């Protein structure tokens, strides 16, 4: 599903590379936590998977494709097979919940009939059935994140990338979101989640990948957040 071969990434105007010789493989259906302090390279790692950045050295394979060899115009097509969720939800405040999910389907050219069928379905799945007409501003943070997850999952991606999805939520709400992500994972979708949330990582007992100063320092199946943090 995802394979990093000796991947390094340096940004111009920065002395220290953001990622250094990272190699790892994530298989189909896995649930992986990506941990590490701020500046450890988590975001760069995710940006490389999304092909928002290209690796400086090494190879990144996502969904069986070498991203270095993927031409620019094929990138959108690759991204349709990924879902993304962020800490700040990234919803459109002037569109309803239903429209927000529909928007993601519209811009990849889905037919109206398909959209009308899919939107209530995924909203049901994330536990927001019947709230299509609400505005994001009227919802709680947890509910907004559920909308974002519904949007990410609407196209039934093979891979879900989550960048601190619980970063803005209280512990109780976070548990709900994690249950949802776990459910999505059980449908066969690979989930890669960057997080600072020790409690969640310790509770879930999934594979944990830790980055430190751009290096991969730990890769543990059924791991915990870490000892020194």
């Amino acid at each position, binding site marked *: 599903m995802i394979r990093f071969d000796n991947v390094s990434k340096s940004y111009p105007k920065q002395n220290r590379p953001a990622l250094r010789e990272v190699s790892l493989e994530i298989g189909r259906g896995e649930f992986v936590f990506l941990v590490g302090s701020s500046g450890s390279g988590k975001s760069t790692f995710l940006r490389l998977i*999304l092909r928002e950045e290209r690796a400086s050295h090494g190879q990144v394979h996502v969904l069986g494709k070498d991203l270095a060899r993927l031409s*620019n*115009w094929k*990138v*959108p*097509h*690759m*991204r*349709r*097979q*990924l879902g*993304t969720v962020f800490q700040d939800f*990234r919803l*459109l405040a002037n569109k309803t919940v239903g429209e927000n999910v529909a*928007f*993601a389907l*519209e*811009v*990849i*050219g889905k037919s*109206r009939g398909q959209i009308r069928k899919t939107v209530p379905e995924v909203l049901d799945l994330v536990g927001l059935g019947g709230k299509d007409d609400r505005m994001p501003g009227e919802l709680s943070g947890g509910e907004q994140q559920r909308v974002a997850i519904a*949007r*990410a999952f609407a*196209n039934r991606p093979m891979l879900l990338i989550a960048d601190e999805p619980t970063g803005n939520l209280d512990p109780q709400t976070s548990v709900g979101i994690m249950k949802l992500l776990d459910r999505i994972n059980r449908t066969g979708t690979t989930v890669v989640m960057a997080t600072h949330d020790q409690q969640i990582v310790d509770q879930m007992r999934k594979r944990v990948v830790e980055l430190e100063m751009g290096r991969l320092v730990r890769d543990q199946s059924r791991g915990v957040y870490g000892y020194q943090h």
Partner: protein
Amino acid sequence: MRAQFVLSEIGVGLRRNLTMTFAVIVSVALSLALAGGSLLAREQVSTMKGYWYDKVQVSIYLCNKNDASSDPNCAKGAVTAQQKKEIKTDLDKLDVVERVYHESADDAYKHYKEQFKDSPLADSLTPDQMQESYRVKLKDPTKYRVLQTAFSGRQGVQEVQDQRSLLENLFNLLNGMNIAALCVMALMLVVALLLIVNTVRVSAFSRRRETGIMRLVGASSFYIQMPFILEAAIAGLIGAGFACVLLIGGKYFLINNWLQEKIVLINFIGWDAVVKVLPLIIAVGVLMPAVAAFFTLRKYLKV
């Protein structure tokens, strides 16, 4: 691509940047109206030049039988074949002459009809009223006086005319106006381009959230950029529409209703010349903003 979705995006974008859109429309309209105006002015000049203007510098009009009574130079009646032959031989002997054309009365009539085909003057003359003439091309156009002294007052010659002295001043004026119009147009065009670039940039910035999400869910760059490009193209189209209205209005009020009544002798451009310019203006009005938007987006809308 869902047309309705794109259209609603464009509507939102145009309304959000109403003042900028208005500025784009006005500057596109003015620059294109000036461009069209200067094209039409050039057309006007070539309409007025007639058949011989670019080929010769001096015309030697020969006496027609009708001139005998009206013109003292032709008191002895129409030019004879002998006189014509002498004039031709003398012309050929002169160093300054490069080439001599002979225009018969019939040729003259033909050229006249051609030049004034849109004008009521076209039907006012008959072939036998036309003058026979020698049209002379000089090696050095300024040596016109040599011919003047050699042929004016000669038997059978009605008049030696420096072709250019008649129209040169008017053409200089028109050319000057044309150059001025083109300079203003170039300036307006730069203003229009900068405004378009800025409008698109602001538009892209104010919708960066939407475009960011579009990027994430895998919308193609075509889909992301199309609303912006169409927005610019629509503003340009409206501007081009105004430019067309200005040109048509100019032709109608300035030429048809004013100049044509004041100056009967000049053959003004017809509607066909105006109609020919309009599609060009609309094409430029749509394409220029679209292309400008496209290149702006490459910089400000990372895909």
